[in-house]
């Protein structure tokens, strides 16, 4: 058999689109001037940056002056959360609401703030991996500085009721940030209609370059500066602009949005087909809501096996996937996301995330569907945990 290579880890990062690279090339070659300088080469770079800003603003329903380029999603999250927290603290507001299954860029920013005296409320995300607006509303206090709830979860792909959350925040006059890193390019977003005050995105999740993202900041809001220095980004984010990256970010986003409807239809079908197929495996389960989830996201658990060994076996079969397994992250606890939806440790260890993109074909999915069951059989055959499960089954313990 030919050596297959199927990339099913698009939620981690995507392949830079060749068309996007094409758009970037002038800025990796001839147009190398500094956008902040006066001469013509600089002016060309400046123009490219400003056009990119407009494009991104258009996609989000924002104004160009509300878009600030960053080095990626993590920086955008840090800036939004720490920046708003610090500026609201001056008004005596030191309470922040978030959810249990945010990305570490959010959770660890909140940890840092907790050490500085902020009080953090992490909302439950329940078994389906979705925040309940009424619980959010109940958590809002007089001194709530910020609500930060991700748009779509990176592991289990569940999409949050952002519009409802935005409306609640607006009603209570609380600033609302959303980490939309997984959602941008996959979901219709309009920051005005959804009452989003700040929104993080990163290019490499939608076939743009790595190391370039953006933060949308609603006009009038002034999060404290994270990276002080030069007058770039209207004095709010210093550093010589990554011009090629910025151009690529905008190009990729436009592309992603223009093909979104068609892709989502196709991927939803592939996803549901594969989920149904894999659910035939004994003691398997799908994690997170089946409907309110990203079109390209599958996250399942298979009892009795451990995620990393499943991944390695898949890799040996040419399939690149991901896991919320502890072993892949250097930590020993399984993914906080899987624990947050109530999975016990031993089940959470056996998780698999498959995430698709435009490049994913029906054949790929069929191949994956054929690949997985024998791997699971093999791993279970050598698993003492599976042995225990089976013994307990015989004894009538489920």
């Amino acid at each position, binding site marked *: 058999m030919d050596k297959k290579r199927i990339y099913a880890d698009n939620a981690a990062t995507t392949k830079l689109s060749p068309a996007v690279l094409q758009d970037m090339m002038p800025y990796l070659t001839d147009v190398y001037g500094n956008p902040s300088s006066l001469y013509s080469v600089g002016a060309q770079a400046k123009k490219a940056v400003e056009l990119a800003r407009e494009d991104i603003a258009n996609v989000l329903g924002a104004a160009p002056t509300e878009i600030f380029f960053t080095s990626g999603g993590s920086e955008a999250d840090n800036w939004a959360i720490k920046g708003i927290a610090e500026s609201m603290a001056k008004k005596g507001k030191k309470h922040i609401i978030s959810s249990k299954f945010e990305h570490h860029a959010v959770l660890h920013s909140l940890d840092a703030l907790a050490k500085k005296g902020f009080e953090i409320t992490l909302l439950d995300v329940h078994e389906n991996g979705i925040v309940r607006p009424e619980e959010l509303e109940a958590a809002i206090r007089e001194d709530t500085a910020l609500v930060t709830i991700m748009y779509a979860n990176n592991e289990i792909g569940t999409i949050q009721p952002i519009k409802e959350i935005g409306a609640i925040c607006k009603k209570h006059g609380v600033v609302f940030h959303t980490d939309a890193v997984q959602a941008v390019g996959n979901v219709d977003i309009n920051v005005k209609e959804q009452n989003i005050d700040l929104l993080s995105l990163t290019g490499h999740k939608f076939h743009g370059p790595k190391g370039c993202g953006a933060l949308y900041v609603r006009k009038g809001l002034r999060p404290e500066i994270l990276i002080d220095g030069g007058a770039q980004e209207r004095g709010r984010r210093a550093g010589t602009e990554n011009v090629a990256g910025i151009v690529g970010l905008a190009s990729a986003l436009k592309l992603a949005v223009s093909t979104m409807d068609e892709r989502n239809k196709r991927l939803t079908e592939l996803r549901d087909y594969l989920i149904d197929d894999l659910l035939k495996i004994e003691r398997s389960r799908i994690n997170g809501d089946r409907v309110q989830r990203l079109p390209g996201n599958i996250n399942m658990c298979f009892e009795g096996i451990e995620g990393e060994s499943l991944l*390695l076996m898949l890799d*040996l079969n040419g399939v690149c996937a991901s896991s919320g397994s502890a072993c892949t992250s250097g930590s*020993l606890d399984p993914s906080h996301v899987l624990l947050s939806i109530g999975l016990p440790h031993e089940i959470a260890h056996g998780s698999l995330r498959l995430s698709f993109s435009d490049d994913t074909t029906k054949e790929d999915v069929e191949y994956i569907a054929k690949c997985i069951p024998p791997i699971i059989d093999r791993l279970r055959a050598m698993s003492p945990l599976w042995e225990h499960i089976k013994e307990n089954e015989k004894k009538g313990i489920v």
Partner: protein
Amino acid sequence: MAYSEKVMDHFANPRNVGEIENADGIGEVGNSKCGDIMKMYIKVDNGVISDVKFKTFGCGAAIATSSMATELIKGKTIEEALKLTNKAVMEALDGLPPVKVHCSVLAEQAIKAALSDYYTRLGVDPEPIVGKIEECNHEEGCACEL
């Protein structure tokens, strides 16, 4: 987080997987909460480990270290098997990523647990011979440099 070729070989083609019907000793270490369980079966003839098999629930390194550990003690005397350290297992695998060191510790412990069981079945107190088998203390035992 890259595994050596040796690790990948022992992961993809683990040696001595399975159970021994009438094992002389069986040891199980680790727990499902932490994501690793190793179960080791041994057959002893005249103080020599004539056969050994394992079953492992765990990551690639857990499977590879189990496989290598069984290879290293098969045909060896009990004395020799008791001298096997996790370092020797790691070295035989051309190294492990720092976060995976605990897997080699687990493999060493699985052998000791099987030998303990062997002595216990013989009516001999295993502790003076095998030593105390401590659960891998993930908190400090496993350098997590990532």
